[in-house]
């Protein structure tokens, strides 16, 4: 099954990248100045964290509808630590997150036990959670266009 498709293009501004999603949405992605960018957009790792948080929101809403779990608001806070020496090529240090921390903040009248049960279920069902917390292959391939 083919899932979604995204096209990313380098712009001519510093490290800035345009992400084109379905030809409808464009996201500006950049790096902060301390990492060589011009800080015109969200960073790739921040975008990764938001995708994880949105996936958890999606699963929460689904579980709540199916299990009569009422809540007024949910905020998912996410943090991740990166050692920049790894990102800059030190082979002894991972260049991605060392760990990710997630905090759920519910505005709800449900008990803590019910909240715990919900969180356990949505983590089990969140596709992004599994894609990040498990080893997933990435196939980078070159596409050569036919000469005219």
């Amino acid at each position: 099954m083919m899932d979604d498709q995204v096209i990313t293009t380098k712009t001519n501004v510093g490290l800035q990248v345009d992400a084109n999603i379905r030809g409808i949405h464009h996201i500006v992605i950049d790096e902060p100045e301390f990492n060589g960018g011009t800080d015109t957009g969200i960073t790739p790792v921040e975008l990764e964290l938001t995708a994880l948080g949105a996936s958890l929101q999606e699963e929460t809403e689904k579980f709540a509808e199916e299990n009569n779990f009422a809540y007024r608001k949910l905020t998912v806070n996410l943090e991740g630590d990166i050692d920049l020496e790894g990102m800059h090529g030190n082979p002894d240090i991972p260049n991605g997150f060392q760990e990710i921390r997630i905090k759920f903040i519910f505005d709800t009248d449900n008990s803590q036990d019910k909240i715990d049960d919900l969180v356990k279920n949505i983590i089990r069902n969140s596709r992004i959670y599994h894609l990040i917390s498990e080893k997933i292959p990435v196939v980078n391939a070159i596409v050569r266009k036919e000469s005219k």
Partner: protein
Amino acid sequence: MAISTFGASVTSTEHSHEYLAQARDFKINFVSQNGDLNKGITPIEGLLAALGSCETIVTSSVYDKNNFAYNDFYLQLNLKDSIFHADFYLGDHADMFADVKRSIKETSPVYDNIVRAIPIKVSK
């Protein structure tokens, strides 16, 4: 050690299947897979954009080292059968692809996050 902490938050909205994400001053509208896809991107699309943009930035650094212009390269990403695919269109610089792939393995944090498996701690 030069640890940097990156953060973001995602909040439910008054509209079902719509979520507002924020990292520093940057906001992104997300929708669920069953939501109105005109109103935002899905979580999977967000992750694909994160991977693609990270690999694009690394590719641009290889271009910079060789004094190439950015006029003809882009990446096309999808997720098929739980495998991420990034197709590189490098135009006249396709012969640089081995360097690009090596740089991605050495310096792309989002690539690393996907292939390595990251521990996640949850609190309520």
